[in-house]
């Protein structure tokens, strides 16, 4: 556990760094707007400000609505995460199943669950709140599980030596030990809840920032689109900072930078692995079927696994359905994979460059952490506006979405290099490059891979939102189309296919991670 060794210089320097970063961004923005004046792409800061002042009533009402939905979803999602974590911990045999199902549900594309929730729950606030909850529960669950397991073994021995069981362990030791991790999760959850609420509003709400976004995209009102994105970003950064401040107020220790769980420990044979995957699949299908049955959802909207199987395999138009689905999936994958790889690579590369210049890294870290809080998807319209509806725009959006978490994770990992080992290198007068190659990059890899895994659902979310809002291609567009044409068999098939592909993609990254970490950081894979 890191105890805060608070020097006065540190917060001051990072505060100055943030201010400097903001001024730099504003300046670059203004210059860019001047350069592209007349092309209906970029609104200058002054234009955005003017628009905000002129429309402050409209903006205020929309913001209040979205914030209320996001807050409700934030509470529900985080409570669900805490509940799941306690279940997984109190009942260790269920842990793997709980975590895998949680990941699977997190991989469901929000742009598809949105319309379904819309038809099931009607035009009110329900879908926005549920989407906000869905967007946050996994990002809280993951650090929480890490935190609950982070208690040193001897603290738990202490509980056991007095004959106390798991429950006392959780209440007396683990819960408190996990608090800093919970706060780290809540920080990331705040902008995610905002994003979820906005995506929910994209699907046909009556009020809110998402509704305004859709309206202004249709009207091509450039200053308005920029104003919305700026407000969304600013609010997210403020909430992110507020939770960080609260954490410092409540806790003695600094919140840890947690990106994702370490790889599950334990070498499993191929058969065991396949058996486990099969169990998970059966469990997921059973859960899907059970929810529809128990909630008595309208069978016209709510399709079960049997309906999807029929639509894909035995229906008269099954071949056509499969073909449309396949084409759309390929179109999406073509954007997701390069964007994801580019964002990750760029994040790692810039982190490595920054770490070679420590003063710059010290300034860049708080800026990157703040920018990570921007719900990038809410800026999707902007990026499409700037870069067009083609491949470049979409891939760039995914890259930006993946870039900030990757940069933060890699910077953190690079700084994790053990001081004593660095001292050994210093004692041989090794240069910065040699230290980078032999110590820092290996120390970075676990964080890099963790962020690579966690970025998979984010990348898919980004692409499907752009496809749905703007480009009219790929699985996102197919889902929007089938929702509006009431082709619910197709919609559910698309959701299932996307979720399965996301999980496979995630599993592929995990496999690569195991191979690489087994060579560079064996303690992480056990």
């Amino acid at each position: 556990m890191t105890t805060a060794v608070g020097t006065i210089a540190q917060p001051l320097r990072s505060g100055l760094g943030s201010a400097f970063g903001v001024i730099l961004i504003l300046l670059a923005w203004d210059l860019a707007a001047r350069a592209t004046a007349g092309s209906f792409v970029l609104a200058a800061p002054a234009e955005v400000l003017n628009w905000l002042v002129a429309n402050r009533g409209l903006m205020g009402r929309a913001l209040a609505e979205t914030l209320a939905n996001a807050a409700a979803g934030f509470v529900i999602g985080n409570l669900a995460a805490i509940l799941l974590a306690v279940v997984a911990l109190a009942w260790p045999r269920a842990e793997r199943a709980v975590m895998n199902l949680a990941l699977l549900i997190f991989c469901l594309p929000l742009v598809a669950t949105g319309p379904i929730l819309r038809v099931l729950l009607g035009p009110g606030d329900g879908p926005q709140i549920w989407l906000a909850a869905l967007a946050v529960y996994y990002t809280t669950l993951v650090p929480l599980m890490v935190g609950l397991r982070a208690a040193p073994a001897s603290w738990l021995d202490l509980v056991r030596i007095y004959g106390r069981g798991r429950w006392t362990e959780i209440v007396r030791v683990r819960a408190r030990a996990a608090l800093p991790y919970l706060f780290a999760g809540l920080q990331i959850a705040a902008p995610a809840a905002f994003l979820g609420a906005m995506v929910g509003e994209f699907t046909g709400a009556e009020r809110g920032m998402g509704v305004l976004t859709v309206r202004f995209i249709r009207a091509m009102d450039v200053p308005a689109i920029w104003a919305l994105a700026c407000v969304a970003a600013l609010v997210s950064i403020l909430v992110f900072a507020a939770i960080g401040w609260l954490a410092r107020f409540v806790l003695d220790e600094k919140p840890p930078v947690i990106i994702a769980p370490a790889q599950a420990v334990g070498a499993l044979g191929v058969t065991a692995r396949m058996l486990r995957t099969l169990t998970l699949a059966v469990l997921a299908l059973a859960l899907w079927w059970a929810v529809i049955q128990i909630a008595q959802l309208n069978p016209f909207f709510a399709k079960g696994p049997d309906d999807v199987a029929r639509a894909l395999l035995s229906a008269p138009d099954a071949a056509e359905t499969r073909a449309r689905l396949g084409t759309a999936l390929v179109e999406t994958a073509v954007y997701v994979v390069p964007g994801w790889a580019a964002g990750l690579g760029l994040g790692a590369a810039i982190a490595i460059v920054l770490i070679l210049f420590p003063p710059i890294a010290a300034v860049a870290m708080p800026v990157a952490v703040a920018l990570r809080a921007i719900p990038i998807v809410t800026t999707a319209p902007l990026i499409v506006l700037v870069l067009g509806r083609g491949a470049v725009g979409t891939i760039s959006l995914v890259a930006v979405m993946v870039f900030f978490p990757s940069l933060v994770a890699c910077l953190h990992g690079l700084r994790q290099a053990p001081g004593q080992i660095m001292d050994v290198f210093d004692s041989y007068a090794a240069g910065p490059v040699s230290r980078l190659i032999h110590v820092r990059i290996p120390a970075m890899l676990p964080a890099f891979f963790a962020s690579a895994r966690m970025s998979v659902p984010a990348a898919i979310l980004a692409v499907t939102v752009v496809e749905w809002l703007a480009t009219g291609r790929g699985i996102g567009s197919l889902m929007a189309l089938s929702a509006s044409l009431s082709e619910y068999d197709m919609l559910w098939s698309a959701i299932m296919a996307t979720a399965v592909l996301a999980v496979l993609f995630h599993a592929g990254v995990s496999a690569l991670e195991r191979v690489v970490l087994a060579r560079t950081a064996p303690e992480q894979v056990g």
Partner: protein
Amino acid sequence: MAPDPRAAEMKSVASPDIVCEGLCKSFADGTQALAPLDAVFDGGKTTAFVGPSGCGKSTLLRLIAGLETPSAGAVLIGGAPPASLQRQGAIAMAFQDPSLLPWRSLRGNIALALTLAGRPADRTAVDGLIDLVGLAGFGDARPSALSGGMRQRAAIARALVTEPSLLLLDEPFGAVDELTRRQLARDLPKLWEPRGTTTLLVTHSVDEAVLLSDRVLVLSPRPAQIAADIAVSLPRPRPAGIERSENFRALVMQVSDALAEGAVA
């Protein structure tokens, strides 16, 4: 005079004998930490275990504490398995690492043991112990504000606060500087000796083993077996300067030789 049967019973509760019967421990990865071990540790006495690093001393202590399950054989403490003593809050252990919860004050950490043992949080008892281990005035301090030696003393105070019948000390002075270490080794036994607590101590220091215990068991390299069993008949409480006495030095030599032989055998 015929011994009072009630007194004998009282003794077995307050100062239980420990019996290890064919005690064995292998871990999942195949390492055998402990060869079948048969031993009796007398109630009310202090037994020290010394042996080379990684020989299984700590595993033995953890088996007796009921923190590990034996692969074969059993541990009986006053005739009962460790779990039943655990439930009575009758075992306490000081770990290699002080293992204080960073978010609790020193007082809160010591009181936690009482809570876990299902006893009322007796503030006078807690504060009394804080004074005894020489931490008076630090009751409200967080562990992060204490030095390593102070934390170790706090951990020992926590182990003692429940007045356990069985006290397990796993290298409790490991992270303490030499000077404090000597002082602790001289002062702390005064806290448990009068109560007749059965005490088991794992240590790397031969001097410490002789100074603190009534019996030193020298363990062989893994899988641990008893290589030598040396009785320590020195006066209790140990007089000041006993480390310089001929008897003490002779015992230290005897244990050191056994340790060296055991390592070769």
